[in-house]
């Protein structure tokens, strides 16, 4: 006999379940988790290298480094004296909540205020997978071209913050920053937007301040939600 069954089930239900377990664990320990996403080479690690020294005096921070292969990024972060664990996806193009679940055993979670996850460099796939983070920081470098918000919309849709990186290169490019900003605004009207340049450190302090506020908010009530409203406060 043939039957038609109407259902509505989220395709990524299993990942979302693991993500909510992660989020509950972070909440119980007062840890704020930030998922950093963006294309390969957009400057995620450089931005972390610039921002972490501004945080470590007041916040206990650790970093999970997602990568296809090699531990170079993790070594760059560890060189700053920040506890780091490398997650190798073995060719997989994104991290899942389960990857993170396993990696949590390798950071001192109960002695942290802020856990930063650098996702695998890929502007499309990682955006589909909730890791249990409280906020997403999307990174887009000006070197990638001004049309990218349109091409990678999901990267921005659920972001609470956006860093437009490598702004020191703007004088060398034909780039309409206002167009990029307008396109990003339509995708995530409530996100905080930072324009940064890692070599000079320009724009890094506002990002550091955003991270400080985010982690302070979480450790107080223990139940920060991943809503856009959280970041705009």
């Amino acid at each position: 006999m043939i039957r038609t069954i109407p259902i509505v089930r989220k395709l990524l239900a299993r990942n979302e379940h693991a993500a909510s377990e992660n989020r509950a664990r972070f909440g119980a320990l007062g840890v704020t988790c930030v998922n950093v996403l963006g294309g390969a080479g957009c400057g995620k690690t450089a931005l972390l290298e610039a921002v972490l020294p501004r945080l470590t005096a007041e916040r206990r921070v650790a970093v999970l480094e997602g990568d296809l292969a090699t531990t170079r990024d993790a070594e760059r972060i560890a060189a700053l004296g920040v506890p780091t664990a490398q997650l190798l996806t073995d060719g997989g193009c994104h991290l899942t909540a389960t990857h993170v679940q396993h990696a949590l055993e390798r950071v001192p979670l109960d002695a942290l205020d802020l856990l930063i996850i650098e996702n695998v460099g890929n502007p499309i796939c990682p955006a589909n997978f909730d890791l249990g983070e409280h906020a997403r920081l999307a990174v887009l470098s000006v070197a990638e071209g001004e049309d990218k918000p349109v091409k990678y919309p999901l990267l921005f849709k659920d972001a609470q913050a956006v860093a437009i990186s490598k702004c020191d290169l703007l004088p060398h490019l034909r780039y309409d920053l206002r167009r990029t900003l307008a396109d990003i605004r339509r995708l995530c009207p409530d996100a905080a937007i930072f324009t940064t340049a890692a070599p000079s450190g320009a724009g890094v302090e506002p990002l550091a301040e955003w991270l400080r506020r985010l982690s302070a908010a979480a450790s107080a009530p223990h139940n920060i939600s991943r809503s856009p409203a959280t970041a705009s406060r």
Partner: protein
Amino acid sequence: MHELSLARHLVEIAGDEARRAGAARVRRVRCRIGLLRQVDDLLMREAFGLAARRTLCETAELEIEHAPLRGRCGGCGRVFAMVDWHATCPVCHTEAERLLGGDELDLVQLEVETPDDQDHPDCA
């Protein structure tokens, strides 16, 4: 690409639902995918075929329903379907200030084959 990963998840939850319904085989799987997910139909079908091997979905046909992107007009607040990124409000011709939807990723329907005795347990 993420199609393979999405297809694996789809086959897994379709299998769960089919088993719950006592199905012997899944004939059709219908999913709804929003435009923002940037899923390529051709790649998704191929990926589904691979992921479905040796599962209840092995011979199932995949139907993909596309969920549109909508925009809320920055002028009059109307919500309109966006055919492309720079679509403007059909009434006041203003650009959308906020995008709605487009991130759907759901299993919405299954067509399954159940053994006849299952439906008439008394006759079994």
